[in-house]
Each structure stands twice: as structure tokens, then as C-alpha cells.
């Protein structure tokens, strides 16, 4: 479904602020799989998601999605295949538009937009059904501006918008990190529902070890722009949050070792 091959990206290349965010990432996702990405800060996990979404074009490597080579496609063209939910609850909705207007924009994701009337009766009644399933009482407030809603409500709506038309790939970028625990649980429950219902191929970045252990059928761990662990099948199911923390600790120690070794070498030879 998704094939990422040898993808590399360097930001600010040639300047003192050069950051090699992705260094040759290989990843293949089977259709219907739900892959969790974890990693330290700056490990490139969000960058990988953005590379797939087309926020920037990669320096090297190819990205194929649903049988199509999308490496050079601009962001808005890839939206035809991809549904996204962002970390910031304010990023996924248009605050001054109403709930129904936002949803009607999502109902045409990746399609041409002409002078057709945006809020057809059939569409609005489907909206009422879908929104009432969120159990947030929003179905009677479809004409309210989204800017007046809470972060959790907006994130739930963003998830609904991202999956309104079944996407070939769903990208979730720490989509509960900015929410209070209760809203986060709710949004995670909704995510599980919709992914299971539509059998969505999903790539999800998270900071929560609990989510990483309990969700998905495969987990990859990134460090310094590369994938350093890939747990699948039974191995993934056995993983507990503590195991993941232990892996992080390993990475940290290796890092320290690297640094102290480098320092020793520097002292001896320079």
C-alpha cells in the first residue's frame, strides 16, 4: 500500500543549522495495517509523516502510495489519497466556518470544487448521523462556527473529516498530545472505531508509550532519522510500555557511550 524507499531529507543544508532529519528510511506498509511510530525528540517521526503527506519534497528516495509514485506530487494533490489529523487541534479545521461547512469541505477531499451548492440536504442529514455518533451533542450545533469548540471536539471532527471519504492512508501525527486525558481517550476510542470499520491503512506517531503498546499491529522506533526497531505480529502484541521505555534507555546509553568515546578520542589525539 505504502512503500517508502531510501527517503532522505536535510533541512537548511549547507548552513550551520543543517539538520539531517531523515537518513535513508525504508518502510513498507501492507494494506489495512496500523503502524505506530515512536522515537525520541528530533528522531524524524513527524518529518517522516510530513514527507509522506507532501509538506515538503524529499531529497532522495521514492514514495509509492496505492500503486502510484507520489514522490514529486505537491501536498494538495496527495490529499486525494491521504487523510490527516494534526497534533494541533486548531490545524485541522477552519475556525470561522461552521461545523457543516467544514464537513462539506472534507466531503470533497481531493476532488474538483465548482459552483455547486456546498450544503446539500442529503449531505447535511448524513452529517447529522455521523456527528451524533461522536456523542458530543454537536449534531444540533452544525451551524456553529468551529472556532467556538474545544480542542477535543475539534480533533474528533478533524478525524471525522479525514475519514469522511475513505482515504488510502490515514496519517495521525500525535493527534491526542495536545488534549486533556479524557478527550484524548475519547479521540483514541473514535480512532480505533473508524480504523477498524473502514480497515484503514494507518500511520500514527505518538508520544504515549501506553498508546504505542496497546494500539496498532506493528510498531517502529526511530532514532536520528532512521528506523532502529521494527516490531511486528506476536512480538508487537507482547510489547508493554515498560519494554518500550527500556528500549529508549538503551538508545540513551548508546548515545552517551558515543559521546564519551568521542571525547576520549578527542583528548588523546587532538
Amino acid at each position, binding site marked *: 500500500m505504502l512503500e517508502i524507499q531510501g527517503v532522505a531529507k536535510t533541512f537548511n543544508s549547507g548552513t550551520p543549522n543543517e539538520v539531517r532529519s531523515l537518513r535513508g528510511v525504508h518502510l513498507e506498509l501492507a494494506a489495512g495495517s496500523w503502524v505506530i511510530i515512536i522515537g525520541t525528540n528530533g528522531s524524524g517521526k513527524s518529518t517522516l509523516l510530513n514527507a509522506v503527506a507532501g509538506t515538503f519534497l524529499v531529497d532522495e528516495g521514492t514514495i509509492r502510495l496505492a500503486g502510484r509514485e507520489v514522490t514529486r506530487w505537491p501536498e494538495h494533490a496527495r490529499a486525494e489519497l*491521504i487523510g490527516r489529523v494534526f497534533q494541533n487541534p486548531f490545524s485541522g*479545521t477552519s475556525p470561522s*466556518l461552521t461545523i457543516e461547512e467544514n464537513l462539506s*469541505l472534507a466531503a470533497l477531499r481531493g476532488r474538483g*470544487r465548482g459552483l455547486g451548492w*456546498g450544503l446539500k440536504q442529503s449531505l447535511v442529514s448524513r452529517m447529522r448521523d455521523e456527528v451524533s455518533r461522536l456523542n458530543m451533542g454537536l449534531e444540533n450545533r452544525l451551524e456553529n462556527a468551529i472556532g467556538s469548540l474545544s480542542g477535543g471536539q475539534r480533533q474528533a471532527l478533524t478525524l471525522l473529516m479525514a475519514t469522511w471519504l475513505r482515504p488510502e492512508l490515514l496519517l495521525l501525527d500525535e493527534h491526542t498530545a495536545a488534549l486533556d486525558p479524557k478527550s484524548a481517550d475519547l479521540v483514541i476510542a473514535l480512532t480505533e472505531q473508524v480504523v477498524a470499520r473502514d480497515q484503514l491503512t494507518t500511520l500514527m506517531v505518538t508520544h504515549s508509550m501506553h498508546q504505542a503498546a496497546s494500539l496498532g499491529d506493528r510498531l517502529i522506533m526511530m532514532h536520528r532519522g532512521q528506523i532502529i526497531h521494527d516490531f511486528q505480529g506476536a512480538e508487537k502484541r507482547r510489547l508493554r510500555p515498560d519494554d518500550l521505555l527500556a528500549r529508549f534507555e538503551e538508545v540513551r546509553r548508546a548515545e552517551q557511550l558515543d559521546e564519551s568515546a568521542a571525547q576520549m578520542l578527542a583528548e588523546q589525539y587532538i
Partner: protein
Amino acid sequence: MSLLIGTFTIGFILSLLALGVFISFRIFAFPDITADGSVTLGAAVAATLMVHGTSPILASLAAFGAGMIAGACTGTLYTRFKINSLLSGILVMTSLYSINLHIMGQSNVPLLSVTTLATQSEQVAVKLMKGATTLDLAGWEVSVRDASLLAAVGLVVTLTGALLYLFLRTNLGMAMRATGDNVQMIRALGVNDGNMIVFGVAISNGFVALSGALLAQYQGFADVGMGIGMVVWGLASVIIGEALVGTNQLGTTIVGTVMGSVLFRLLVAVALRWGLSPNDLKLITALFVFCALIVPQFLRKKRLRIAHA
């Protein structure tokens, strides 16, 4: 009374300008200076066409189209060539000065002996009134010419305002509004935001040029200098309109913008009557917009200070 009617008429005409500024500044948050040039562009195109015998309605529509082209140029400079939005507008506005002179062939085109929307609406009204030249309006004696002009302009503004409202609620119009609101989201939903901005700035300048075309027909001439300061004028109207209606619902803000334009023109007429020199008008307008931009910040700070105390 005829002064009041004249004030309303100009207020309505300039409300189209205000709607144009509303689209660029408020919907797209795009500070578009092109408007100063496209007011004149609309006037120049319409006046020149009418002098050559084109019907006033066609000439006004052509002005709208010319304004759209000018706006599309600004939008393209901004999106394709990554030139700063203000500078894009300044570049197009400056080049429009020469273009307008070319279109008109001179710095001023009089329309006194030409068929315009003004003369046409007067003819229709005189026919309706069976030859009377004045009519009784709630006890006031009003010349048919003035009243018919106001009615015609009011009709045009109502029509274009309604069209704008309907357009902004189509799939395309909603995508445009969302582009100004949240670019990240609209890209993720598959909309080419650059195209939306080009199109939006084009429509904005279409409105502005139409306003210029009507203004030329009302005052009876097109002049190469008539656009100076129009952006600030439009912005003042938008700000007053927002203060008047107070909500951010689409329909009410459009109505508010029109009301703001009329009210602002009314305030200006009163000030001029009280002896304000017309030379100071642009200075006062700029000061007004300055205050309108500063006061909310000032109030917020004050409220914060009170909250902290």
C-alpha cells in the same frame, strides 16, 4: 435632501469597493494595495468603452473583468513568484497608472454627453413618473434624477452583494474562505491554495473596478487620480461595518460592510459640511483607520492590567 441622497448613492457605490477590500483583507488576510489602481482601471475601461458607444451595462461588466485581470496579476506575483504581498500589490498598482493613461488616452475622460447607467436610470424613472422631474418622498421634494440614481445603485449593490453571498457558500467559495482561515487544513483537503488566492484577489479587484466604473458614471468623468487612498477608504468601511454588526456570520458581515460604507460616507459628508477641508480628507481617513486598528489592542492591554491588579 439631495445632498443626503447623493451621500447615500456614493456610499452604495463605494460599498462595492468595501466588499472588494473585505474579500482580500478579511477573507484572505491579504493586504491588497492593487485596489488603488483598479478603481481607476474600472473607471477608465468603462468610460472609454462608453465613449466608443458600448452599452453602460456591458462597459461595467468589462470593468469588472479588467479588475479581475489586475487582481490575478497581483495574486500570481505573490503565489508563483513568492513576492511579498504588499510589494506585489504595489507593483501592479504602479503599472496600472500607466496602463490607465493608455486606456483613456488622456488623464481625464468626461462622460457628460454619453449614455451611462446614470442617464439610463433617469430615463426609466422619468418614463415611470410620466414626465415629472421631482417627486415627493415623505414630505421632501426630491429630483427624480437623484432618486432614480440611488435606486439603480441600490439595486446593483443588493444584486452583487447577494451574488457574493451565494458564491461564498458554494463548494468553491467555501474552499476560498477556508484558505484564508487555515492553509494547512485546506491543503490537506486537496485544495491548491495558491490558485484560491489568485482567484480571490481577482474577484476582490473585480468588485473594486466595478465600483470605480459606477463612480465614474455617477460623477460624469473618469480621472487617472481617482483611486488614490481608496484601499484605506474601503478598510475604514469594513471596520465600521464590523463594529456595526458585531458578529462574524457571513451574511451579516456582507450587509455590515455595505452599511459601514454608507455610514462612513455620511460621517464624511457631515464633517465636510462642518467645514473640514476636503484636502484633509485622506489624512482624516488614515487617522481613523489607525485608531480603529489601535483601539482594540489598547483596550485588551487595559483589560489585562485591570485583571492583574
